[in-house]
C-alpha cells in the first residue's frame, strides 16, 4: 500500500514537447502503468484507475495520482526574460528516486566523481554551510554552500569558488542555484526532476534555466548529461537500494547537512516511497 501522502504529490512523467497522441508515452509511476498522451490539444495522464491530475511546467508534464496536497513548486526564474530554458532529456537509473535526489544535493563527491569538471583533488574541503526548512513553503534549503571548481559551467573560463544554494522542492525534485559566470547578480538554475517508476527504478529529467546567449543548445544539454551520467554508476551501486531513513549503518558528517535534513523531512512528511525505515 502506498501512503496517501506519497500519492498526493506531483511527479514528472514526460517532457512536454515530446508528448504525442494515444498511446503516447507508456511508462510507470509509483509502480502503476500510465500513458502520457495528447488529446484535443491537451496533455492527459491516464492510469489503471482513471485520469490523473496534470500540470505542465518547466518543460515537463507533472502528474498527481491522488488529490494534490498543494500546488506544484514555483521556480520564478523560469519566467525571467533572457533565460535559456533547457530540457536535458530523460535518463533511467536503477536506483531509488530518493537516492537520485540525495546525490544531487551532495557536493563532497565532486572531486572524485566529476573529476576536473566540478572539483579536483586537493581541493576537497567542504566548508560550513547553512541548512534550514523554510516554514512558508515547507522546503529544505541549503545556503552559503561553496566549493572550488576547475570548470563550473560550460560558460566558465577557469577555476573559481562557486557558490551554491540547494532546494528540495518536492520529495523527488530538487533545484540548485549556482553563481552565474555571465551575470554576477543572478543565479543559474539547474533542476533535477525524478520520476519514481518503482521504489528501485527511476527516470531522471534534468532541466535548466540559464543566462547564456552564446553556448549552443547541444553543448549545454550534453554538459548536464555528462555530469548526471557520471553519477549513474554511483547511484546503481549504493547498498541498500532503498534510502535508509533511520540512523544506523550510514554515517553522515558535517558535509552531509543537506542530506540529513532531506532524510528527516521525508520521514516527517511520510514521503517514504523508495526509503526503508529500519536500518538493514
Amino acid at each position, binding site marked *: 500500500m502506498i501512503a496517501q501522502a506519497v500519492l498526493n504529490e506531483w511527479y514528472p512523467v514526460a*517532457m512536454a514537447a*515530446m508528448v504525442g497522441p494515444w498511446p503516447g508515452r507508456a511508462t510507470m509511476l509509483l509502480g502503476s502503468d500510465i500513458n502520457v498522451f495528447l488529446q484535443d490539444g491537451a496533455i492527459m495522464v491516464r492510469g489503471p484507475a482513471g485520469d490523473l491530475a496534470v500540470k505542465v511546467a518547466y518543460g515537463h508534464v507533472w502528474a498527481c495520482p491522488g488529490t494534490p496536497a498543494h500546488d506544484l513548486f514555483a521556480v520564478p526564474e523560469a519566467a525571467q526574460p533572457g533565460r535559456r530554458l533547457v*530540457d*536535458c*532529456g*530523460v*535518463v*533511467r537509473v*536503477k536506483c531509488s528516486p530518493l537516492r537520485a535526489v540525495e546525490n544531487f544535493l551532495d557536493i563532497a563527491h565532486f572531486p*572524485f*566523481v566529476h*573529476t*576536473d569538471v566540478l572539483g579536483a*583533488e*586537493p*581541493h*576537497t*574541503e567542504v*566548508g560550513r554551510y547553512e541548512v534550514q526548512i523554510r516554514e512558508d513553503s515547507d522546503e529544505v534549503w541549503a545556503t552559503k554552500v*561553496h*566549493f*572550488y571548481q576547475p570548470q563550473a559551467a560550460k560558460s566558465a573560463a577557469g*577555476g*573559481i*569558488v562557486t557558490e551554491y544554494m540547494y532546494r528540495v522542492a518536492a520529495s523527488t525534485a530538487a533545484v540548485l542555484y549556482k553563481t552565474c559566470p555571465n551575470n554576477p547578480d543572478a543565479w543559474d538554475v539547474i533542476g533535477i526532476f525524478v520520476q519514481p517508476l518503482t521504489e528501485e527504478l527511476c*527516470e531522471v529529467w534534468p532541466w535548466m534555466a540559464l543566462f547564456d546567449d552564446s553556448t*549552443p*543548445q*547541444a*553543448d549545454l*544539454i*550534453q*554538459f548536464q*548529461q*555528462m*555530469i*548526471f*551520467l*557520471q553519477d*549513474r*554508476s554511483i547511484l*546503481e551501486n549504493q547498498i541498500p537500494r532503498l534510502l535508509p531513513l533511520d540512523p544506523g549503518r550510514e554515517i553522515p558528517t558535517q558535509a552531509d547537512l543537506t542530506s540529513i535534513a532531506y532524510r528527516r523531512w521525508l520521514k516527517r512528511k511520510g514521503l517514504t516511497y523508495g526509503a526503508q525505515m529500519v536500518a538493514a
Partner: protein
Amino acid sequence: MKLYDYVLSASCYKVRLMAALMGVKLPTEAVDFHPGRAHRSAAFRAINPAGTLPVLVDGDLVLTESTAMLVYLAHGPWLGAGPKQTAQIQQWLAFSARLGASLGMARLHDMLLYPGDINALRRAGVEALRELESHLTEARFAGRIFLTGDTPTIADIACFPNVALAPDGGVSLDDYPSIRLWSRALRALPGFIEMPGIHRLHELKPAPEAVPPLESLP
C-alpha cells in the same frame, strides 16, 4: 578536422580517445542525439545520409564508421606491424561491432529507453565478453596484456568503450579478471581520457599532501 560528436556515445568516445592518445587536437561539434534526435534530421543527413554518429570530416574526407576514424587518426604501432598483426587487428575491429550491437544496445536500452530485447542483448553481451576474456587470458599466459602484440593497437581502442560501459546495460564485469587488467592497462596509458560511466583511476595519482583551505582560494 572536425568530429560530429555525442558525449554519451561509446562510438564517438572511441574516436575522442584515439585522438587524445595520439596527442591530436580534435575539435568536436556536439549533435543533440538525445533528447533532440538531431542526428536523424534532414540537416544532419546532408552530412551523413545514414543519420549516425560519429562523423569525422577532414577537408573533403567524410568518414562515418568509427573504426575507419581510428585507422585515420592512428599511425605507427597502433596500426600493427606486418600482415599477421594487421589481420588480427581487423578481426578484433569486426568483433568490436558485436560489442556495440550487444553491450552497447543494452546500455542504450537501460539508460536512454531504447527499445530492444534486453535479455537477448545481455546474453549476447556475456557471450562476447567471455570470448574476449578467453583471448586476453591466453595473451596473459604469453606475458601480454593487449589484444594483439605487446603494445596497444586500434583493436584495443575499438573494443574498450563498450566493454568498460557494460555495467550501464546491466552486464557486470566482476567475472572477467583478464578484462579487468586489460581495462586498467588502457586507462593508465599516457593521454587517456574518460567518458561518463568510465571514471578516472584516482590511484594513478598519489593522495594530496595537503588540502588548501577553502578560504584561501579565489
